[in-house]
């Protein structure tokens, strides 16, 4: 239990430290937002507002792309919702591990439930370390502030980096997510789930197109886990 100021700071710092390697993966988002905002005629203020209020990089890229294409507003909102629908699953999975926070802190904390936030919280819980509100905020607020600042910098300096590919920045995101996928390899049914999600997401990406590969691929993996024969499916949480 965390009960004094010094311990709280240590928890907060531990959370911030968890955010450090993730920050490198946010960098490409800042640069991509800049490029997309400029080519789609979205202003600096609007792009920063997207990051500050939505705080979900992939959906913001879809939004930025659609803003420039004369698409009906409700369709843009629906697309953002579709890309972010996976958070429902994150919320269900992590929610029951943090009910000890109480409703107000949960309502605040869940706003910051991003892919890395969820993955790191799950990892922490699986390792038997309590997911405290202070640790969670240490990671979440570090990511949030960095993300919003990088978005602003990305649009303002967007034109300065002419070729993000030459820095390998475009591919940091898949490498980061692969490392996270690997972190869950000891879970039961890991391989069939990853195989099903891979096949379904590639098929969806090549046929229907982005962003549907995220939702459809995830559903395929989860369905495999649900219908798989149950030997010791729930005794291993790590």
């Amino acid at each position, binding site marked *: 239990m965390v009960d004094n100021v010094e311990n709280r700071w240590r928890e907060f710092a531990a959370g911030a430290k968890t955010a450090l390697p993730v920050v490198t993966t946010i960098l490409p988002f800042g640069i991509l937002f800049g490029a997309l905002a400029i080519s789609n005629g979205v202003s600096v203020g609007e792009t920063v507002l997207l990051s500050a209020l939505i705080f979900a990089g992939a959906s913001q890229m879809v939004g930025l792309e659609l803003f420039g294409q004369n698409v009906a507003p409700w369709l843009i909102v629906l697309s953002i919702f579709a890309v972010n629908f996976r958070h429902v699953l994150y919320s269900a999975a992590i929610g029951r591990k943090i009910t000890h926070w109480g409703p107000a802190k949960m309502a605040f904390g869940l706003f910051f439930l991003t892919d890395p936030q969820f993955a790191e919280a799950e990892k922490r819980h699986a390792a038997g370390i309590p997911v405290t509100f202070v640790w969670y905020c240490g990671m979440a607020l570090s990511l949030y502030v960095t993300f919003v600042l990088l978005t602003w910098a990305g649009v303002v300096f967007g034109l300065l980096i002419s070729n993000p590919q030459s820095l390998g920045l475009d591919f940091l995101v898949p490498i980061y997510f*692969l490392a996270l996928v690997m972190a869950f390899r000891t879970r039961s049914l890991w391989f069939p789930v990853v195989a099903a999600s891979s096949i379904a997401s590639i098929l969806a990406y090549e046929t229907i197109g982005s962003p549907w590969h995220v939702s459809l691929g995830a559903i395929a993996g989860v369905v495999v886990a649900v219908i798989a024969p149950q030997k010791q499916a729930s005794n291993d949480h790590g």
Partner: protein
Amino acid sequence: MTMDNATIWTILAGAVLTYLTRVGGHLVLSRFERIHPRIEAGLDAVPAAVLTTIVAPAAFNGGIAELSALAVAGIAAWRGMGMFGVFFAGGAVLLALRHWVGV
């Protein structure tokens, strides 16, 4: 900073719906006292299932440099290397192949 009204409302609506996805899963699930083992198995599969969908299409459409980078990063992660190590290994392979081999 110029802002367009329709754009602002679109962003606000997107933000509200995104927040609902982040609290909704818990609000719906917390209504049930016991969770069926199959639902539990499904929830357990969520992180790997979702994160895979971001990697697989990128790997499928990647060239030799991208595939090699993912392979090296995957092996590094499999062997329990920390996040920085995985990044460094994958990033180094990617840059080396793109710059000096040009694939």
